[in-house]
């Protein structure tokens, strides 16, 4: 409570100074450190960044041209509103959250275990309507019953796997909704989280009665069979991470949601503010045990709670800030101090969306979709377009990204393995050809070499080439093109270069 008050006070003082609390905070921080903030990002740079961050894809060449040609002073604010309220944004957030909640690495068993189609649809609708975040959390933790009528139960159903005790569900829930990493306390008392094994198992108790009987059921026998591997700890009773016990007579799920959402540390809000901050800035705002900006985190948490836990408002606060809108050109140390714009590798969902466009995977998806629709053997569940979307995603992921990535870590795209995959793999480089996808579109749309080069630059790195780059590319085309009609090998090479560039792979 004290913390929230401090946050509110800071928030009040920050809001007095300027309209954006983030900018006000860093203006103070910089004046103390004598730092100079980087220049604002140009329109091309900003448009690319905010598109990737809010709708998870790149602007098309036409969109980029139009935005850079718009001379209205409010063009950025208008763009942000349009993106925030778009269907596309809800789709993107649903995919991100599907990754975070149940991860896209779904197997046949997962489809038998849970109904992810209605779940994705449910998430999508929540984000489109900007449902208060606490309502989403409450449904995920306490809804029970039919996997189709209460789609939120699929979060638990997916995690209720082969384990006798739903430890994984408890660990994921603690991390997502209480801002606590408790996984290590399962086996030993945790040195950093100051958590004992007893506390760990006390939290797990909230999930113990859950059973997957097709629908999610909270079985009557709260403590179930005694577990041999718990040893002395087999008699622990349900307690939340802060030690509070559930109200007697209340269903454990409802009690868990109450306790989670009323925790004094505002863990649920802190976790989501930190998550979104990391989404936009590629780093945590107040990492534990290191110097960060806990006061700003407090202020943002206070603002979030004061305004009905609107995710859209929180995202708006971030992307309208000058802090977010600075150019990313600059050194790492200035970025560390938030005196240069964000620079991060594309996340998995963005990456897959981007390549779905570039490689025209839509076409393959539609073919697959049609096959399943016409199939007499495919289960009814797989005819759900939402399920197909999940399967497309999974399939693209298999094609484009190494397996086993952690959805919370977005650096899988910067590895030697990814370099080899995009420089050399025959399936990926096999799609970087003149007859296919984006390159085919560009070649048929433009006929002059210089126009084609410009179109490729705008489509992939969202800006026109500089004079030097234009010359370099045109020289290359002249040097490496034969007189044969339809020899587009040089364009394929330029295309290959652009998708392998850091400027392309980074969201900057």
């Amino acid at each position, binding site marked *: 409570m004290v913390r929230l008050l401090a946050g509110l006070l800071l928030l009040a003082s920050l809001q007095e100074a300027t309209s954006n609390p983030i900018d006000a905070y860093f203006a103070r921080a910089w004046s103390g450190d004598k730092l100079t903030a980087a220049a604002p990002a140009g329109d091309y740079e900003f448009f690319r960044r905010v598109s990737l961050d809010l709708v998870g894809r790149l602007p098309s060449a036409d969109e980029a041209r139009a935005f850079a040609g718009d001379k209205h002073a409010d063009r950025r604010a208008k763009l942000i509103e349009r993106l925030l309220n778009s269907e596309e944004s809800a789709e993107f957030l649903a995919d991100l959250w599907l990754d975070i909640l149940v991860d896209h690495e779904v197997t046949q068993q997962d489809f038998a275990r849970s109904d992810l189609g209605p779940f994705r649809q449910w998430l999508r609708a929540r984000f489109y309507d900007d449902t208060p975040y606490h309502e989403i959390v409450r449904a995920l933790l306490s809804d029970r019953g039919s996997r189709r009528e209460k789609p939120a139960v699929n979060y638990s159903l997916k995690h209720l796997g082969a384990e006798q005790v739903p430890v994984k569900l408890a660990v994921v829930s603690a991390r997502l909704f209480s801002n606590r990493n408790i996984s290590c306390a*399962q086996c030993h008392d945790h040195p950093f989280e100051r958590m004992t094994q007893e506390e760990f198992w006390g939290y797990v108790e909230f999930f113990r009665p859950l059973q997957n009987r097709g629908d999610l059921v909270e079985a009557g026998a709260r403590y179930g069979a005694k577990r041999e591997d718990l040893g002395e700890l087999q008699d622990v009773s349900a307690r939340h991470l802060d030690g509070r016990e559930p109200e007697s007579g209340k269903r454990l799920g409802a009690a868990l949601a109450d306790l989670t959402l009323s925790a004094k540390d505002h863990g649920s809000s802190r976790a989501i503010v930190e998550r979104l901050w990391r989404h936009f800035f590629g780093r945590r705002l107040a990492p534990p045990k290191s110097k960060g900006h806990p006061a700003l985190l407090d202020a943002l948490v206070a603002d979030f709670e004061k305004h009905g836990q609107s995710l859209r408002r929180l995202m708006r606060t971030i992307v309208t800030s000058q802090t977010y809108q600075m150019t990313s050109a600059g050194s790492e140390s200035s970025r560390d101090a938030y005196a240069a714009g964000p620079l991060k590798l594309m996340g998995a969902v963005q990456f897959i969306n981007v390549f779905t466009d570039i490689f025209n995977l839509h076409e393959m998806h539609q073919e697959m979709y049609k096959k399943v629709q016409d199939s007499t053997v495919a289960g009814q569940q797989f005819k759900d377009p939402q399920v197909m979307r999940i399967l497309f995603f999974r399939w693209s992921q298999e094609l484009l990204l190494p397996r086993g990535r952690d959805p919370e870590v977005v650096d899988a795209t910067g590895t030697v393995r990814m370099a*080899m995959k995009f420089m050399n793999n025959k399936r990926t480089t096999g799609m970087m050809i003149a007859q296919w996808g984006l390159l085919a579109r560009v070649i048929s749309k433009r006929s002059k070499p210089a126009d084609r080069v410009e179109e490729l630059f705008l489509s992939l790195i969202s800006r026109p080439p500089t004079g030097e780059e234009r010359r370099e590319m045109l020289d290359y085309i002249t040097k490496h093109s034969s007189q044969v009609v339809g020899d587009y090998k040089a364009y394929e090479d330029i295309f290959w270069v652009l998708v392998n560039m*850091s400027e392309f792979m980074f969201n900057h």
Partner: protein
Amino acid sequence: MKTVKTCECSRRGLLRMALGTAVGAALAEQFALPLLGQEKTATGKAKRCVMIWLMGAPSQIDTLDPKPGTETGGPFGDIETTARGIRISENLPLLAKQMKHMSLIRTVNSRDPNHDTAQYTLHTSYRKAADVEHPHVGSVVSNELGETTPDLPMTVVLGGAPPAGGGYLAAERGPIVFDRIAAPAEDVLPSTNNPRERLQRRWELLKASEERFAKDHEDKKVEDRRRAYEKAYQVLTSDRVKAFDVKRESDDMRRLYGDTDFGNAVLMSRRLLEAGTRFVEVMYGDWDTHNDNHNRVKKLCGEIDRPVAALLQDLAQKKLLDETLVLWFGEFGRTPRINAANGRDHWTTWTVGLAGGGIQPGRVIGETDELGMAIKSRPVNTADLFATMYQCLGIETEKKLVTVPRPMKVLEGGKAVGELF
């Protein structure tokens, strides 16, 4: 069941070998016990290592620690092997013929019955922690033994995604992961639409653009990515990349390994190690047999038996086994009791196999009781297991790999299993 030579004997043998002279031997008689009490004498015969990682944790009872005819034994019998006194499950007839090269630790144990954290521990030797990422054991090995060539990755994982990367070691020490068991070399070998000359031409054009972006964005992330690309390019354009091409082996050799996805991956691991790679992990299977254990294990054993046996036979014939440590690994074992779904659940005592690299073959360390429910003698914890591996490779476990964010040793605790040397 016959276990092993006494500790005493092997300690002396070890010291004698280390000193190598009659005078040494005499000294050894006098000083052996106090000197070797610390067990820190590294033999370090192994120069490389291959880890066969059985994903999902295989049933020890249906593989290397059979309990035939008992209530926990399941439907399978046991068979004799070429190592006197060692019997293994009938599911592994070809491996049985190569057991003379291998030793078993049947009492590896931990307290962690969860896949993700246990996999992490058996890949890093450390428990998962919130504040630090530990490196893959293969990264530690290549870090400590050094690079044999810049043209190949020193640590490679085939067929799956390991739970650890380079951790706090330099980014380029991280394992290079080829997770598609069906085509691990697809990313590496040249293809028709991207022959080497074209790759080189494209690379030259890419380099200029990269420099401009790096100049404006002086950032470790950009630098790391640039280095990853340079490393990748170097491997792709080197002659040694042929090590990934199992088609260069004779038909007989490919048949020996079975010419299946897993067989070819194991064969590839041998080619990579020969060409200079320090550590290869081959991941395979879904051994998480909570249901239908017997049929599933039988099928999986049928898939791995030939390649693993072939690897031992092949390395021995090529006289490479002494310098190559071969590991049969998983994150834990499975319950002796068979559950209602004819499956076996998670169990934290299991069997690990080790061969080559200075391991004395044909030994069994530790014994589980008749039903496999309890450890009867010589428990070995996971730190001891890693200490044993590092001793084979001559890696000093007390060495601090980094000091930031806090000092991290190669291994925390752990005592090598002296009876294996």
